[in-house]
């Protein structure tokens, strides 16, 4: 009999943290797919390193979120219960992270978009009213800077490399850009976090994000598609079709070995 799913607190503070932790986790999951398959050995090591950092961040944030559930009158959970026993609808990662790994251009562009965002977010979270979160952020912001450098350098190389690399980078922008507005959508989860000082509204990071990403894409010689009305909704638990497959793969062992100890 497979292991049953857990119920997660609806508390907006918990959800705010789950958005952060889940985004790191699912992005790490996609990056891990490059292991042994990167274009050159040095990049295999680099991408795996980034994935490792993100897993570390996910673990720290999910652990904090799980403890917060208990502090807020719900059932506490640990990082693994949250990662392996939640249903899809309770995962709050950005849809951007669950899109397939894609080619190297898709990967570095996605990394650039997310790392830039996280750098700005972690910087703000360093002054979170929650000391645990502030501590996590102090370490994570250094990692995010490193991830951003790595990704931005590659965006420039691909944009200014060969015709093929620029075309692939353009295709990556066309493909991923529609999923970026979700980063800055506002809702009551953000409001609650801003009120208590847990963290900033993500919408406040938009200007800073654009100020870094847009010149980067310009310098790389790629155009952004015109804005659309489409909004992805992973942050609210309604994901793309890809999420089901990711979770099936990620959760399979815990689901098939209920009560297992690893």
């Amino acid at each position: 009999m497979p292991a049953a799913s857990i119920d997660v607190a609806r508390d907006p503070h918990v959800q705010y943290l789950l958005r952060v932790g889940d985004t790191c986790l699912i992005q790490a999951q996609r990056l891990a797919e490059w292991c042994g398959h990167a274009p050159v050995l040095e990049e295999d090591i680099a991408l795996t390193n980034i994935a490792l950092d993100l897993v570390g961040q996910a673990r720290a944030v999910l652990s904090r979120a799980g403890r917060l559930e208990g502090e807020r009158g719900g059932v506490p959970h640990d990082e693994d219960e949250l990662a392996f026993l939640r249903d899809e609808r309770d995962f709050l990662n950005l849809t951007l992270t669950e899109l397939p790994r894609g080619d190297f251009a898709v990967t570095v562009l996605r990394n650039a978009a997310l790392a830039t965002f996280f750098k700005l977010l972690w910087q703000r979270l360093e002054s979170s009213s929650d000391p645990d979160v502030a501590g996590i952020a102090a370490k994570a912001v250094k990692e995010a800077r490193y991830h951003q450098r790595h990704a931005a350098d590659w965006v420039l190389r691909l944009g200014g490399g060969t015709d093929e690399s620029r075309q692939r980078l353009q295709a990556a922008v066309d493909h991923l850009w529609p999923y970026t507005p979700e980063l800055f959508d506002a809702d009551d989860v953000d409001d609650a976090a801003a009120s208590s000082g847990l963290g900033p509204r993500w919408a406040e990071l938009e200007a800073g994000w654009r100020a870094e990403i847009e010149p980067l894409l310009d310098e790389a010689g790629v155009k952004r598609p015109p804005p659309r009305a489409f909004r992805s909704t992973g942050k609210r638990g309604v994901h793309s079709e890809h999420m089901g497959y990711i979770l099936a793969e990620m959760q399979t062992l815990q689901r098939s070995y209920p009560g297992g100890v690893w």
Partner: protein
Amino acid sequence: MSDTQKTEGSARAPTEARGEWPLWEVFVRSKAGLDHKHCGSLHASDAAMAIQMARDVYTRRQEGTSIWVVRSEQIVASDPAEKDAYFDPMADKVYRHPTFYALPKSVDHM
């Protein structure tokens, strides 16, 4: 940029025609007060990449380490090894590597 070359006696395979990323030697100072130590080499297409990779590979991103990267072919070496009678074009290089010398295309089949 130099094309890859064969070492004496080995066959040149078609895929070698594409450029190889240049080779860089890596030197790391793990703690203030110590010397930089040679750790090994890696391939990178430019200096920024070489530094980042050296951090990933040779320091596992420890804070406070200082990293030098140098194109391997640019290091001038003097080794107290046996002096050979015949001319050795690699005499001042750190080691024999197929890409350390760019030959004119007319003789670039060795």
